[in-house]
């Protein structure tokens, strides 16, 4: 087709794919969540982290309460306009690779708070990888969300040395 496109050698592509799979596997099972908890969904977050539903089975147990050490920003609950600069700052303070989960319908779209105070969805200010709707979502839904995020992480590219490998 287009003979001018430079393609890497097939052996290198195989290596890159395998490297991506390995790094993806490692990253997806060692998520360090930063629970940015604001509202009612926080109660379900407590439930999903505890014994009956347990995010520890997925490697996502240990919350890191500093953005510098975490890679999964779980925005749990309504984010208001007053809280928005705080959320943006936390997101910027996290290092790559980072993922964002919008936990609950208020974080996804503002929920049923369509007024002057609530931010209509956190994707207005930060990019979101997985949306878990629900008011609040059942713990099984949250776990489904984490598993889909893990699939997404497993399937994505993970450049570790430079932006090509």
């Amino acid at each position: 087709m287009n003979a001018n496109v430079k393609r890497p050698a097939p052996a290198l592509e195989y290596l890159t794919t395998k490297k991506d799979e390995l790094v993806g596997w490692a990253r997806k099972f060692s998520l360090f969540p930063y629970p940015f908890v604001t509202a009612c969904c926080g109660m379900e977050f407590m439930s999903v982290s505890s014994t009956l539903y347990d995010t520890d089975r997925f490697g996502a147990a240990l919350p890191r309460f500093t953005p510098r050490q975490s890679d999964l920003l779980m925005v749990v609950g309504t984010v208001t306009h007053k809280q928005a600069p705080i959320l943006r700052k936390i997101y910027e303070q996290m290092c790559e690779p980072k993922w964002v989960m919008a936990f609950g319908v208020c974080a996804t779209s503002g929920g049923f708070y369509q007024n002057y105070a609530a931010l209509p969805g956190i994707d207005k200010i930060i990019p979101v990888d997985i949306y878990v709707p629900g008011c609040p979502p059942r713990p099984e839904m949250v776990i489904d969300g984490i598993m889909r995020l893990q699939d997404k992480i497993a399937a994505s590219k993970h450049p570790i040395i430079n932006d090509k490998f």
Partner: protein
Amino acid sequence: MSTELPNPIRPAFTEPTDESHVIVNIGPSHPATHGTIQIVTELDAEKVVRTDVHCGYLHRGFEKECESHTWHNLIPYVDRLNYCSALINDFAYCETVETLMGIEVTPRCRYLRTLLSEYARVADHLTCVAASLMELGAMTAFLYLVTIRDYIYEHLADLTGARLTYSYGRIGGLANDLPEGWLERLAEILEQYEEFVGRVHGLMDRNRIFIDRMRDVGVISTADAVNWGYTGPILRSTGVPRDLRKDTPYLAYAELDFEVPVGIKGDNYDRYFVRMREMDESVHMMHQLMKMLPDGPVTVDDRRCVLPKKELVYNEIESLINHFKLIIDGPQVPAGDCYVAHESANGELGFYIVSDGSGTPWKVHCRAPSFVHMGGAHLMLNGYQLADIVPTFGSINMIGGECDR
């Protein structure tokens, strides 16, 4: 983003009173401040000299939202005020509207509301104690208490359809009656509660580290507490047995036999113990109520606010119009205003509603105990150590949804 992010608050002080002091900002995204409170503190090494508490990070415009919904449609908003014990909010609001409309609920509804209010109180106190213990490092106690709380959530999901925010109260009664086998499961859960809470008592009550961290920390006197508007477990921990369920009984509380636990000093340990004992009293009340529950309908047969039965709606034109008007226009509440307060898990939860005679409210104001408690929080934080802010704050049980509305 390279642009500077704006600061949403203006702190009360930016310069320390002494050059050796430091100003440290705690929150609002902080696990101990439950994610929505910012405390600007001035520290002298580890000692807190003064604090400036900022709330409002979860202000979701509850009052403004209520003004554009009908009296029934805003019940989900009311749920999400104190989301840990959402049923108490539902029933307090419904009772306020019922008082203004002049409706008296059926006996079964009264007893059920009392039973469920106490159930919600247990869930709220479990959450508060579990969170504050976890913040001290006692992960085991947290897991025990949250497990029981989860059984309660599943059980309430059997009744209302939702685990956390139920929207179960209706003006004139309740959404539906108890399903089969609900009371048997309740008895089972209360037994497991006794076992688990017994273990937590064994781990915490005489634990040297726990006592050292909580005794004589965050002390508030009765005079200060009353002046700064404290009600609920915090006021009771100072030694006065003020409880709306005993002082001005509502629902079925006048017929129940229960005590009002009080503390001795008004410190964190007392608040922990008052909450643990209150849970035991609530369980005792629930056992009594399970035996006292009368039969009968759970909603009043009042066409002004209760939806007619579906068979009638499909067969009679009057019921069809009634149903239509109730859904579209909302129940017509006579003009006037009304204030009704219930004893929620945090204290006096009051609803002040103003009606202009139509189906949508003119104003629905919630007198939130957490908001008033934040006003006086500095009394319990100043003078103690930086590390004491965490347990003191946890023992105040500030619920963001209620504080900021």
